[in-house]
């Protein structure tokens, strides 16, 4: 569905539908480029060496 930082239009519509958005709305023409730009802006996270890092959200059992 996604190659590099490109999200295909079909994939975008599929995900928008799954998220409960109205995919028939003209608003999708505004949202699609915004989402592409947003995904590009976070692309750099893929370059982080996270081999030695757990997500910073440890579970704490109830006490």
């Amino acid at each position, binding site marked *: 569905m996604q190659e590099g930082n490109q*999200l295909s239009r079909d994939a*975008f519509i599929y*995900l*928008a539908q799954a*998220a*409960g*958005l*109205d995919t028939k709305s003209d*608003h999708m023409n*505004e*949202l699609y480029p*915004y*989402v592409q730009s*947003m*995904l590009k*802006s*976070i*692309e*750099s*996270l*893929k370059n*982080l060496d*996270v081999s030695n*890092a*757990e*997500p*910073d*959200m440890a579970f704490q059992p109830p006490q």
Partner: protein
Amino acid sequence: MDRLELCYLSAGQLSKLIQSREVSPVEVIDAHLHRIEGTETVLNSFITLLPEQAREAAQRAEHQIQLGHYRGPLHGIPVGLKDLFNTAGVRTTSGSRIFDNFIPGEDCTVATRFQQAGAILLGKLNMHQFAYGPTGENLDYGHMHNPWNPEMVSGGSSGGSGSAASAGQCTITMGSDTGGSVRIPAALCGIVGLKPTYGLVSRHGLTPLSWSLDHPGPLVRTVEDAAITLNAIAGYDPKDIASCRSEIPDYTAALTRDVKGLRIGVPKEYLEAPLDTEVAQAVQDALSTLADLGAIISQISFPSFEQSQAISGTILMAEAAAYHRDLLAKDGDKLNPPVRLRLEGGLFISAADYLRAQQGRMLFNRETKRLLEQVDLLAGPTEPVTAPKILAPQVQAGDQTIGTTAALTQYTRPYNITGSPAISIPCGFSTSGMPIALQLAGRSFDEPTVLRAAHAYEQATQWHKRRPPI
């Protein structure tokens, strides 16, 4: 005393006059309501003003003080709360007409603590819709305006808090800071903004933007007032799962003005980022002042800074979208368009990307912890530019043109990632008369050191005494 003078006294100054009965809370509230009446059509700081409620509370406070029941330095002091702090019986809109008639049944913990301290709620302050923007632009309730130049943004998302405190409409205001939303309006409006350590001040009863990045904090005109406010609102709250059981010191006791030997590190990456030359010079001068006071200033390297926008942005967008998911499906078309896009955009962040950002957060925090073993504070500009024009999509920062949102959150987001205490204090003005600010950040729960350094600098300079021309 002249009404305008009453409006520009700090809580520290006003409290002494109230305690000694030289001034009554009734006079104080009347003065502030008069000030609001004279400035509000320009600033648009408030969504809901509570004049009758405030006057009644002032009369009760006056009576209590006359009977000898003085509660402390916030008794009789006018306070404004950003309109995402729930207030029982008073509408709380989060800056959206969708919630125009939402009236909470219960106060948030911060409101309860202010009430217990005897503070008087003047009203609910305007904000960027759902706290999701750094400018204070709001199409539902109108944009907030900067008291130093009303054509410019007040900053956001706690824009009304910034303009109200700066213009003397309130003595103390509260905001919430997820990517800078207390420090940005504080910096752009020429006042003090404190983002405390994550978990120090309860988030209970606040509309969330991003659960793991949200920090309630005060916007005030002096560092002492930030300390006084923190004394009243900090502390464990069982209703907030992120609330910390740390010991709460007397934050005003930290205001010794002594910074001899304090090690302050300035990341070189801050100076390499897009940065206006006047801002750079003002911050450099501020650091020289701190050095003259005995602090040890050094340049350090903070390589992870480059990743802060991606880490913070991913976490914020995903969490905000998750919280507002149902609203988006039902009423997305009623949102301010830029806020709608940001919220919907978050729905497209995968779980894997969100978790990767949280891994990045772990690495970021490790590096920051290491840096704060070498130095006591990290310093730099709060903002790379002065307040831009309302609705400007881009700003000029040095020789670079960058997006307004990216610019205004450039230096603030890192301390939401780490949860560290960070304060913005005025440190100068541009040639066009707009405020410039210095940011100091410290170790978790070391608000005393952050406040001590900020207070020392403030008291060695005159910036905090300047008033906007409104």
